[in-house]
């Protein structure tokens, strides 16, 4: 075996050398940072890889395609934040017939950029019949008329519907997902407009953004591009029913900004997925790098040490492996057998050592001719001892440098496979996120998706820069001929 002290001395020497290569140092720092991120993924974002499916309840209360939260800090506009409304008043009226429950939440809206969503949640039990109403009392209290003759005394009624219910029920109402909310708002505001006799624009109910309308000023822009109306809003959830019992009611405000990297169209927190992307990327890249070091050293050393017909034979095999195209093999195997990430890693591990093996063999041939190897041989050292004690320490840095250059290639290839539709559907990598952005046509809207496209790719660039600059610096240190004059 390689003596540990020797190896340690080598590593320390290499690291001291490294200090003179500024770019290499930056590279090592970036790699260390990304490895830390990858290792911490299960702590920082537990379960995210399993919950990444489209429509998983974990993301239900997030806004869709909200910008990163720090956009609020660097721009002059005030962006609405994600909020769970805590303040509410509760009112319950017991009657012989249907009883009714009423939760009134207060929301202080002070943002220039309006919230993206409002989520209402409630659960309980009833005998037979319930009636749900969700009413919003605005700071300006315009003279509004509810639909179907309901007098609502200046409030917006966004949900007003009977339900037949027996036993337990649980409901989540999301403003952007319910067509009826949009239509209700449109009807009420159009009726108001007609009484005001303004010549207001009418985009048609289809283009009304419900949340923006709720928080919009009552002026000519109300339906089309609402101006924010700041102030205190009272949001009331009102349920009537026979023997109605309510367990809880909840209101979440979906922010105009959310999370470190924003959210995607399916409300998933991009940052949490990004962390797992680093983990899976480094997992794939790391395993391929390790197998590359192992295979290429074994191959190169055997070939170089024994020489003769062994070398000749192994070189023939190597030339054949060299010519095998990676992508077609990947496509066929991943499409027809299994598209799990381990299959991808296996194929890359089987193919990627070939480039490094060539370098190792060439270097091995030089080392094998060194005089101290000859000396060791004449002193009676066995071939195993010569290879492990004298040759491998000379060769290993080359293998490490080559393997480091491979890591970004593996990570980029894995991500690219997702765009081709061959990625592992059960995990989340940067490729998963970018493929979602691609299929959702995110490229068409700068405002709503720059973060969705930018950050996953940036992860690849950071890791790529880290490994390539480290690998290059390492090559320069072990092979001083490459230094600039």
């Amino acid at each position, binding site marked *: 075996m390689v003596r540990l002290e020797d190896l340690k001395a080598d590593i320390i020497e290499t690291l001291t050398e490294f200090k003179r290569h500024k770019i290499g140092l930056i590279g090592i720092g970036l790699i260390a940072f990304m490895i830390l991120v990858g290792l911490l993924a299960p702590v920082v974002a537990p379960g995210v890889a399993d919950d990444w499916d489209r429509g998983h309840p974990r993301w239900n209360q997030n806004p869709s395609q909200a910008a990163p939260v720090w956009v609020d800090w660097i721009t002059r506009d005030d962006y609405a934040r994600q909020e769970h409304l805590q303040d509410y008043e509760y009112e319950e009226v017991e009657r012989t017939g249907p009883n009714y429950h009423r939760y009134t939440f207060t929301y202080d809206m002070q943002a220039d950029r309006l919230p993206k969503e409002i989520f209402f949640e409630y659960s309980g039990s009833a005998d037979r019949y319930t009636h749900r109403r969700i009413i919003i009392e605005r700071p300006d209290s315009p003279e509004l008329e509810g639909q179907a003759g309901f007098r609502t005394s200046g409030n917006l009624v966004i949900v007003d519907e009977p339900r037949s219910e027996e036993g337990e029920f649980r409901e989540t109402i999301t403003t952007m997902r319910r067509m009826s909310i949009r239509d209700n708002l449109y009807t009420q505001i159009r009726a108001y407009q007609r009484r005001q006799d303004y010549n207001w624009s009418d985009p048609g109910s289809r283009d009304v953004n419900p949340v923006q309308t709720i928080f919009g000023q009552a002026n000519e822009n109300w339906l089309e591009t609402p101006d924010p109306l700041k102030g205190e809003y009272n949001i009331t959830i009102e349920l009537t029913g026979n023997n109605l019992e309510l367990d809880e009611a909840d209101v979440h405000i979906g922010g105009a900004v959310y999370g470190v990297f924003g959210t995607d169209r399916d409300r998933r927190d991009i940052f949490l997925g990004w962390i797992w992307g680093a983990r899976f990327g480094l997992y794939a890249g790391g395993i391929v790098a390790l197998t590359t070091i192992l295979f290429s050293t074994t191959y190169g050393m055997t070939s170089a040490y024994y020489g003769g017909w062994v070398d000749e034979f192994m070189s023939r095999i190597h030339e054949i492996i060299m*010519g095998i*195209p990676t992508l077609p093999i990947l496509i066929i*195997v991943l*499409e027809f057998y299994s598209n799990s990430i381990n299959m991808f890693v296996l194929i890359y591990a089987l193919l990627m050592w070939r480039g490094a093996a060539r370098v190792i063999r060439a270097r091995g041939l030089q080392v094998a001719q060194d005089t101290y190897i000859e000396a060791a041989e004449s002193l009676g050292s066995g071939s195993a001892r010569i290879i492990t004690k004298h040759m491998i320490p000379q060769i290993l840095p080359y293998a490490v440098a080559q393997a480091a250059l491979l890591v970004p290639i593996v990570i*980029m290839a894995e991500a690219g496979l997702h*765009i081709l539709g061959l990625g592992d559907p059960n995990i989340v990598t940067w490729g998963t996120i970018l493929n979602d952005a*691609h299929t959702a046509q995110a490229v068409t809207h700068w405002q709503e998706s720059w973060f969705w496209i930018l950050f996953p790719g940036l992860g690849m660039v950071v*890791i790529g820069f880290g490994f390539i600059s480290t690998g290059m610096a390492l090559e320069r240190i072990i092979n001083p001929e490459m230094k600039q004059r």
Partner: protein
Amino acid sequence: MPASWKYFAFRTLNMVVVLVIVVLILSASYSTLAERELETTARSQAQNDLEAAEGVDNPTEFLERRTEHYRRRYNLHIPRWQRIFYSAWDVLTLDFGTSQEITYGGSSYVIDIIMGYLPNTILLFTTAAFIYTAMGIAVGLKAAQVAGSKLDKFLSLFGITASSLPMWWVGMLAILIFVYTLGWFPRPEPRFPRIENLGLLGYIREILYKMALPLITIIFVLFGGRAWVTRNLVTGILQDDYIMAARAKGIPERKVIYGHTLKTAAPPVITSAILALLMSMGGAMISEIVFQWPGMGYLLRRAIFWQTDVPVILGISFIMSFLFIFGYYLADLIYGFLDPRVEVGSQGASR
């Protein structure tokens, strides 16, 4: 020269062996799935025959006979390893079968479809390759001449950064910024303009306009790495003793660079350019999907999306393999031609 004939023969043999191995791997991976599909087809065709036939005395026996008939037609009665060889032969003779979902110019033969899409890939990719290789070599040479200067340092940084950029991601950003935000380039669309409506000049202009953004993206991503590799190869040679000797003799620097250095640098520079070109093919295929450029990558995405289009996937894989293997072979031949010192055998492999 007998030595170079030996080299040529050796390389050709190597290429053929690799090609056969790859085709066997491809058709072996493919045969399990193909077997399942063909069994289903044989059974459903026999069922159809039964429904079409009138007055069959023994339906079960009839069904069995017809199924056996179709199984024979699809070679399902012979062992699998034999079928792998049969399908390998089909692949080698470019007989990939027909596609269920995709047609090209009215034909649903896979080879016709691929031949319809392949020119578009070549148009984009080869144009880009010529430009970025020429630019890369020119800038790399310049940087090597002034090694250690600001230009050289910037190139190193740019080379490392560009090498860590996924081309298709840069493409997505470019579309987001330059197409949909600034509106400088046309929206990506898989349709090409028609020559009949535009006339030749108008047609070329339209194609160039459509091609501009993908082309710029590919060049931007690949040129830095190319320049950097060239620079490293040339600086290595500039430190060789004979260059020092030439300089010491007082030969002008221009002559040292373009005479002595380039002569030595040409084989590795050209070969590595060809190899880099082959390697980047995969990245360019994914970029095609992002740019909706109707080439091989775009076709492949469609075939994978349709799931059932196994023949198209197999066909594309083979054509890609063939282009790769043949390109690799050409690169080797060119290297041998440019650098007569190359020998056959283990010495040749150690370059």
